[in-house]
């Protein structure tokens, strides 16, 4: 598999040639770094690039799934499946649309709902929504990924007031519904929702995507 498939080599010949070494250990790789690794995976089936992605994301996806209450062995399997999906569908990855972290988050979240919560209808519906967006990729209501400042979003998450930060984490990292959060914290349902609304507005503002 050293020779790139001719049809695939056309996808991103320039990017694919610029495969870079891992960044110095003190630098956090950015979205552009990951999209170059993805270009090499897609165009050249480059295993070294794939394993750079694996080494960074596999343990994070594993921890994400473990936090959701997934048993260790199943979490390991789902991480492998998520990365295998990346290998198979690298050609569908569009760095202009979403960062690799966002893309892998979606893949892992979908696998969790499909295989842990056992909701067989979720996956085809999400894939349908993705196709609708691909079909309309010329018109964007969301800021293009290149304009998204990942660091600003990280800082905005760190700056959330304590209650909002707690609710956002319970939502994303424990997959708790509004009602479950309300019960657990003894908060009125309306307050849970309004706090989450305020948190989302702040975070969206940091992404330049607020409308």
């Amino acid at each position, binding site marked *: 598999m050293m020779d790139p498939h001719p049809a695939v080599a056309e996808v991103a010949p320039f990017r694919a040639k610029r495969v870079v070494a891992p960044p110095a250990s003190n630098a956090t790789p950015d979205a552009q770094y990951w999209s170059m690794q993805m270009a090499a995976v897609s165009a050249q089936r480059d295993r070294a690039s794939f394993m750079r992605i694996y080494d960074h994301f596999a343990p994070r996806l594993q921890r994400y799934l473990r936090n959701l209450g997934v048993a260790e062995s199943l979490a390991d399997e789902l991480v492998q499946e998520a990365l*295998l999906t990346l290998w198979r*569908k690298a050609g569908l990855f569009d760095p202009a649309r979403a960062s690799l972290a966002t893309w892998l988050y979606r893949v892992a979240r979908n696998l969790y709902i499909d295989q842990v919560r056992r909701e067989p209808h979720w996956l085809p*519906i999400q894939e349908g929504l993705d196709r609708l967006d691909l079909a309309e990729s010329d018109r964007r209501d969301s800021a293009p990924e290149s304009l998204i400042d990942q660091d600003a*979003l990280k800082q905005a998450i760190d700056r959330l007031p304590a209650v909002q930060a707690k609710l956002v984490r319970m939502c994303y990292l424990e997959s708790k519904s509004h009602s479950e959060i309300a019960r657990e914290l003894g908060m009125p349902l309306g307050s849970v929702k309004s706090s*989450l609304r305020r948190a989302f507005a702040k975070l969206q503002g940091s992404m330049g995507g607020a409308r």
Partner: protein
Amino acid sequence: MKPHHHLDDATLLSYSAGALPTALAVVAATHLERCAACRARLLDADRIGGVLMQQQRIDAPADDARAAMLALLDAEPATAPAAAPADLMEEADPDRLPAALQPWFGHSLRALRWKRVAPGVQRIRASSIAGGELMLLRIAPGSKLPLHSHGGNELTVILDGAYDDMLGHFGPGDVADLDGQTQHQPVTSPGVPCICVAATDAPLKFSGWVARTLQPLFGF
């Protein structure tokens, strides 16, 4: 036609987190299918999830896990990675139910088998859905529903026809994203029946003796 009433930010966040109860997620997906603006906001919500996932504290992957991953790649066929499919959009067919509803109610609006639950009100309940109620409602034109509020969350998307309540006019694709505080009394528009899909994660509460009489008919 672009929807005018959208998903609440808190609902979108929950959808992105995979934390919305199934019945509500089905109705949210019905709206997302018709609303590019909400899909764009969903992408923003997914970006938050991506950052939170990346911020997880971790250990380095074990050597045996890396070796297992590479062995899986060896087993993969040496074909080009999948490219975007060509057949992106289905023809707009007024009889086709939204994709999110098809697993529960079939493909065709015309083929639905309605059950009368009150004068002017017909319903089909989704069976065996976890964590709430999912139903299609078909309400005769010009009907006034009893004043009611909701114990928990309620999501409604209009599929055909329209109704008005104190929150505004709701037509095809519009979503009413209500919480327990909201009391409303929808009045369907004249002309065609109002067909909508509704989900709750808790029983409805009707007010007044007329409504209490109707409640058993609705079977909420």
